[in-house]
């Protein structure tokens, strides 16, 4: 399938041809006459266009499948037992079935971002017009859409120019999902190649969504000094009516802010948020407050603080309606994708809806008009706040906790249901005896998933017990976060391009994704600060961006207060919500195109080859849990950027691991000579699940190494790797000889011990190549 046509829309609203007017012939491609770069080889790639690149990567990082079930249950031939070398009734094998599952996951992820992007774009075009200019940075951002330019070969100028990008995405998602049909693709690496394709499509969807909302909603535009916003449950003024927004699609929330402003109520009502809508609403108004990542949904609602809950799409707990009903807070659903069985009141008068909410006649409604949501939410919150009096479902005091804990029979079912295997029965036993410290400790590691509760035959509201026991902690949750800045400026790229490729900056480490952490939020903050202190460039987004801010150092400062928001050594750069992840990929792409001047337009392979071999970037999704996170990771992989996940990440069904012990796997072309030369096992893995934070940190440092590293750069990277290893694991890394190519790679301060190690491991010097995996790059290589 080649989809190189460009779509044009004609508004034909409810009309037959006679009424056709308002024909807007804005053609995406036509704006390209402002872009004189010649078209590269692969604009709008189809399913197999980049298959060779994918297979090159996948043969180096062969999937290690970790089946999450011996079975396949995808069709009614099943269930099929695929253990051992068995095949299913459709002939599929276990590796192919695992990779098929990964592809379904990646398709769900990509469709979620692209579907969101479409919804958002349609809304913004309706509100601001298709000709509204894209602007992601007033100064210093000329490459406004590096992913779109790279993948599609077009340069979008207006919002309408983004539509053909989404048409392409939707088309490709449909093709990709079709591949998962029973009795279709049969080979795991071809499934995996399609996973990478889905990841690339996902990046397009994210980029469209974020550049559209940055442009139209006036979010910070690549601003390294975007303001700080309040973060944490303790920041809420509970004396006021409180609105809680949850999800990812910001328009209903911006309408809430606008309505407040219009009615001069801004300082009378608290607007608080969870998940990405929270991040994006603070990009719109820094008065809004972020409560926390997805793991705060239950605890915050149960605290009784929110008076109205407004949900949109994605990462909204499926039991939100039940939970908010328990605290008597009306729920407004605002997305076609999440209707919760609620009556559709989009066309009803605001007065009636507000009345039904306040009188309790209705506990929830679907309102698909964001403007109406704004008014209903605000008026309901003001009206209902005095009535519901912050009614909460948490145990009201220590005695209540103890009384509940006393019912426990120590059956252990709660612990066995807990994703993190937390020691609940022991803590509850202690609580029954009046000692709440166990529960209080568990609060720090708890995902807030609530899975411990339903198995309890004693109906003990275990999660509520934990939250109540940690009451002081929750009140003390008063942190701050730098609001999402969006893109990285071209000028920043020009400044850091050299230091990164030369290794003065040891790497870019991006902490992204959800909060399915093995041991709570704090580990993300600690990792961020460690790498910032070591003068890596640290990026954050999504739930991880919040977690990064949820910790204060000895001086009482959060990470965002300690470190700059510039894309520079030692910066901690919050790009924004999940869809802002595109800017992290975009930064890597821009290093190749702006700093190294590689052709960008429709030139995916060369750019990815550049990033892979030269840009020491690593993604860390410490609590990745969602299908979107899987798609985001896949997008990084195709660009050649390794991703580290937490231990739950093994449930993504496979790792992509290199074999540093197999020398033959690590040959690259030397672009200068055309010879195949040993480039070393760098980066060693493409997708890696770490057991602990410590293991992750050592691995992150290791994965920033690239075959292109100068000796100075390699020495800097090695110094960090060795130092972290010594401190966190103990001793010199046993594989350090694999990363020393010449003696000048050895960090000066560690010379003696390393050289001894090298001798013990019969180390031999290797040349530093001008590395590429693409044969066609030989001799074409320019300096970069």
């Amino acid at each position, binding site marked *: 399938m080649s989809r190189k046509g460009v779509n044009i829309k004609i508004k034909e609203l409810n009309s037959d041809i006679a009424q056709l007017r308002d024909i807007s012939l804005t053609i995406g491609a036509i704006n390209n006459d402002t872009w004189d770069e010649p078209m590269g080889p692969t604009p709008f790639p189809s399913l197999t266009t980049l298959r060779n690149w994918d297979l090159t990567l996948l043969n180096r990082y062969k999937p290690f499948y*970790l089946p999450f079930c*011996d079975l396949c249950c995808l069709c009614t031939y099943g269930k099929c037992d695929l253990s051992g070398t068995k095949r299913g009734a459709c002939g599929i094998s276990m590796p192919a079935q695992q990779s098929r599952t990964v592809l379904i996951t990646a398709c769900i992820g990509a469709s979620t971002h692209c579907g969101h992007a479409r919804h958002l774009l349609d809304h913004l075009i309706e509100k601001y017009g298709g000709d509204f200019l894209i602007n992601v940075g007033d100064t210093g951002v000329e490459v406004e859409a590096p992913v779109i330019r790279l993948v599609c070969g077009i340069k979008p100028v207006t919002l309408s120019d983004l539509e053909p990008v989404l048409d392409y995405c939707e088309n490709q998602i449909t093709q990709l999902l079709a591949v998962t049909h029973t009795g279709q693709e049969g080979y795991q690496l071809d499934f995996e190649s399609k996973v990478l394709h889905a990841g690339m499509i996902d990046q397009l969807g994210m980029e469209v969504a974020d550049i559209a909302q940055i442009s139209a909603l006036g979010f910070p535009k690549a601003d390294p000094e975007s303001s700080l916003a309040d973060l944490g449950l303790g920041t809420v003024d509970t004396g006021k009516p409180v609105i809680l927004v949850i999800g990812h699609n910001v328009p209903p929330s911006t309408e809430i802010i606008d309505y407040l402003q219009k009615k001069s109520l801004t300082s009378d009502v608290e607007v608080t948020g969870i998940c990405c809508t929270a991040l994006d609403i603070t990009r719109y108004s820094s008065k809004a407050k972020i409560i926390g990542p997805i793991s705060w949904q239950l605890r915050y609602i149960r605290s009784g603080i929110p008076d109205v809950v407004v949900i949109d799409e994605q990462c909204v707990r499926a039991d939100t309606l039940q939970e908010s009903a328990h605290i008597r807070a009306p729920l407004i659903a605002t997305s076609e994708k999440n209707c919760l069985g609620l009556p559709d009141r989009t066309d009803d008068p605001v007065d009636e809806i507000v009345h039904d909410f306040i009188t309790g006649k209705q506990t929830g409604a679907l309102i698909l008009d964001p403007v109406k949501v704004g008014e209903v939410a605000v008026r309901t919150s003001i009206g209902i706040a005095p009535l519901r009096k912050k009614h909460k479902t948490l145990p009201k005091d220590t005695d209540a906790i103890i009384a509940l804990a006393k019912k426990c029979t120590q059956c252990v079912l709660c612990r*066995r249901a807990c994703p993190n*295997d937390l020691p609940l029965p022991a803590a509850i036993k202690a609580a029954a005896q009046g000692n709440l410290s166990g529960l209080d400790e568990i609060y720090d590691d708890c995902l807030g998933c609530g899975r411990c509760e339903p198995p309890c035959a004693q109906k003990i509201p275990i999660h509520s017990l934990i939250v109540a026991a940690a009451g002081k902690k929750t009140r003390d949750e008063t942190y701050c976060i730098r609001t999402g800045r969006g893109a990285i400026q071209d000028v920043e790229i020009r400044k850091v391009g050299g230091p990164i490729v030369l290794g003065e900056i040891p790497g870019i480490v991006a902490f992204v994704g959800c909060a399915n952490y093995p041991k709570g939020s704090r580990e993300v903050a600690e990792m961020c600060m460690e790498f910032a202190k070591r003068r890596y460039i640290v990026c954050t987004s999504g739930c991880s961006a919040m977690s990064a801010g949820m910790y204060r150092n000895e001086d009482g400062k959060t990470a965002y207060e300690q470190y700059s928001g510039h894309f520079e050594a030692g910066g901690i750069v919050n790009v924004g919500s999940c869809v802002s992840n595109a800017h992290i990929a975009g930064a890597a792409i821009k290093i190749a195109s702006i700093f190294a001047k590689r052709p960008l337009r429709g030139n995916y392979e060369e750019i990815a080859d550049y990033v892979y071999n030269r840009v020491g970037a690593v993604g860390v999704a410490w609590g990745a849990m969602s299908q979107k996170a899987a798609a985001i990771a896949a997008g990084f992989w195709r660009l050649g950027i390794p991703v580290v996940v937490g231990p739950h990440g093994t*449930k993504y069904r496979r790792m992509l691991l290199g*074999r540093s012990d197999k020398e033959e796997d690590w040959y690259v072309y030397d672009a200068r000579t055309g010879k195949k030369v040993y480039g070393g096992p760098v980066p060693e893995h493409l997708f*890696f699940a770490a*057991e602990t934070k410590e293991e992750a940190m050592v691995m992150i440092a290791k994965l920033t190494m690239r075959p292109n590293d100068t000796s100075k750069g390699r020495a800097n990277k090695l110094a960090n790797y060795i130092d972290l290893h010594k401190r966190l694991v103990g*001793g010199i890394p*046993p594989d350090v000889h694999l990363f020393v190519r010449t003696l000048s790679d050895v960090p000066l301060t560690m010379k003696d011990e390393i050289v001894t190690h090298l001798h013990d491991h019969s180390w031999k010097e290797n040349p530093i190549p001008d590395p590429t995996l693409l044969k066609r790059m030989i001799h074409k290589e320019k300096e970069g």
Partner: protein
Amino acid sequence: MPMTDSWQTAEIPGPKKASLIIKPDIADAMIRRARRPIMVVGHGILEYEVEGRKLIDCLIELSRRGKIPVVATASTNQEFLNRGFSPSALMPAVDLANRLTDARWNGLDGKDSYDLAIFVGLPYYMEWTILSGLKHFAPHVKTMTLDCVYQPNASWSFPNSSIKDWAANLTCIVANLGD
């Protein structure tokens, strides 16, 4: 709870499930019979005590008596070092497991492939998935777990046991091996 339910309730594997180490002899026999065993020790061992001793001490003894090389994952190495014991390798669990799936991998010392891999101390769910990978893709390697909970994806596992029963079993295994 039933002896052979997954410890984390929902981690149901499918038809192929671990045989039970009901008596220490079983584990002993397996270890003795193995041509080339290897032991992967995760950070979770630091939490357990076995009859007043730290589990790690018990494992060191097992390694010494059974001549089983130890791979320490995550930060576990530090505790070994503190006790004057040097693991044969420091390596993430997924990396080691991935190599085990390669029947031609000649082990840490380059001499021969392993035929028995003993796991202990990884997070339950992570050990579950890693053992699943090995169950399906390393048919040449038997796996065993020494944790006190049932791991269905291993070849052999203890049942879900009280710490006391489990400690007794473990001590017994170690003691027997010396002979």
